């Protein structure tokens, strides 16, 4: 179960393409969420109003009511549940419309599932206070956020500013596969896909400092998807 603050997270997926919807449901369920899936906007509205969800994932183009309409009516009913839009169109006016209506994020199809998962977790994390921590720990790795210092097995590790940011990101989101695009955006403020292997190089360097001389290995590669940090169980 994916929990934040010991609470099970419940999502609604409204997607009229049955295959996409089913895979989304499976993927999100396996990531630990409780997922309801509907195929039309009308059902989406009914579910969203009658049940209590932590996040709505709405396809924009749906039979019955479209995603915009559902969002409008959900907001009109006074529900401020976060909403993530899936859209096949990336017109600027679409984004503006979505944001005006109070959408929290949007993803343009085709998107990678790892990307969706990362965004969903970001949205769910929003508002919960995990920033009060001043030290992060994983196995014998300790990161002091105030002093900007990392030690492993009591040994001081020299990190550049960006390496520290990267490590902090990976540790804060332990157990989550972080797509390269998300890492580039969070650490280097690169908000578009760069067709280079900078992230690979950065991870390789961080590994050399954090993992190479130590055991267990903490940084893991999710092939084709991204990277994550976790202790082996």
């Amino acid at each position: 179960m994916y929990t934040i603050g010991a609470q099970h997270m419940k999502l609604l997926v409204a997607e009229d393409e049955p295959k996409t919807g089913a895979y989304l449901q499976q993927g999100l369920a396996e990531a630990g969420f409780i997922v309801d899936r509907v195929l039309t906007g009308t059902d989406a509205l009914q579910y969203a109003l009658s049940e209590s969800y932590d996040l709505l994932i709405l396809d924009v183009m749906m039979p019955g009511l479209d995603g915009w309409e559902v969002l409008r009516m959900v907001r009109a009913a006074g529900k401020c549940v976060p909403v993530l839009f899936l859209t096949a169109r990336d017109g600027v006016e679409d984004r503006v419309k979505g944001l005006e209506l109070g959408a929290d994020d949007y993803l343009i199809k085709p998107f990678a599932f790892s990307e969706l998962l990362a965004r969903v977790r970001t949205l769910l994390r929003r508002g919960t206070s995990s920033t009060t921590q001043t030290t992060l720990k994983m196995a014998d790795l300790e990161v002091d956020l105030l002093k900007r210092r990392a030690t492993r097995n009591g040994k001081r590790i020299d990190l550049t500013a960006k390496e520290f940011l990267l490590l902090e990101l990976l540790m804060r989101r332990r157990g989550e596969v972080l797509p390269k695009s998300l890492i580039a955006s969070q650490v280097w403020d690169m908000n578009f896909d760069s067709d280079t292997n900078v992230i690979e190089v950065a991870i390789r360097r961080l590994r050399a400092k954090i993992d190479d001389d130590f055991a267990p290995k903490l940084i893991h590669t999710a092939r084709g998807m991204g990277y994550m940090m976790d202790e082996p169980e």
Partner: protein
Amino acid sequence: MLAGSSLVKRLTLMIMFAVIAVLVVAGMSFNVLSQHHFRLLDEQALSEKLESARHILSIQTPGASLEALRLQLRALLGAHQDLTAEILSSNGDVLFSDLKAVPIPDHYKRADQEAIWEWQDESHSFRGVTADVVIQGEQAPGTIMLMLDITSHAHFFETLQRWFAIGLVISAMVSAGLGWLVAKSGLRPVEQITKVATSMSAGSLQERIPLEPVPLELQALILSFNGMLARLEDAFVRLSNFSADIAHELRTPVSNLLTHTEVVLTRKRDLDAYEDNLYSNLEELKRMSRMIDDMLFLANADNGLITPQQVDIELNGLVSKLFEFYQLLAEDRDIRLTLQGKGIVFGDRLMIDRAVSNILSNALRYTPQGNEISVHIQQTEDKVTLTISNGGATIDPQHINRIFDRFYRADPARREGGPSNAGLGLAITRSIVQAHQGKVWCTSSEQMTAFHIAFPASRQPVGDRSRH
């Protein structure tokens, strides 16, 4: 009133109105001129008679009988058919009278400085003059009145006007008919153009309407029409190429996916093999997804659908940030990154980020180990130039102009080269720069390649900015 009606109808009506207007003006001028002419003739006749009568009255020998005087006057005045004359002595006695039709009205019997007067009763019109006259042998001057019957003039004008009206109606009808013929034949070239335009289809966009048989006035229309065809053809060709490019570029990953998946499925394998296949597929699919994103961006740019936000962007900071990102890669390959100069452009931060980043990553890909990539920013009055230069193999001049074309790679053998390099980066850069009204070009000589981006300088006038 004429809007929307046929051109022939319009022209016909216009020609008709023009003819009527010309005729009316001519007729009215003729009328006024002839009236004036007749008046002059009358006045001349009246003043001649007046002078002669004065002469006779003034040279009258003393003692000559009144009868002899009257005879003389009758010889002068009575001979004229239409002339009525009356001479009064100073005490009001009628000295001479030659009344033809009607008596002279009383109120014209006072001398009024020889002014010409006009008068008409029911059937006749008159023009006359009243004047003082010295009569030999009398103390005070007498009065002489002369009056011409001008009824025949009036008749002449009436007839003239009637015939003019009839002529006008006939001319209007004839001019309408002729106008219709003229307009019809004058507009024949337009019909021909229409015929050609109607026969145009997507397949015949390379055809043009011939200029030769067309009148001069329509050539501008044909030229702009042909220009439109050229633009349409260009867009159409680009669209076709775009589709062909997509098909071609997607063929390789799709065929990889197909082959690999089919081979894996031909017999039972262990879990690792399946996993390996799925991972491999994932990589191909990601590449395709990325390509679709990029193609969509380019398609939108081609159609003018990307609208950059407009904010001031400090380029030095922007490049520094990109350097931070690419530093790792550069260090890995022992390439130095240097930056100098600064400049401010007005545009979309994310887009310009992407445009410069694409050139940087391209430079990193082709710069040999141990070399340098230098970025130079220069701000002048009206533009900001960003130059990214690196050492390395000189780009062949035949490639240099096509380097910004989508899917173009200088070395066709490298097509399958970098897994993430679809050959769209520089095309996207160009689209972004063009969306910012800028220019991007590449120079390469003597082992030195440079990409130049010129943006118009921030649109706010420099003086304006300093005040804020």
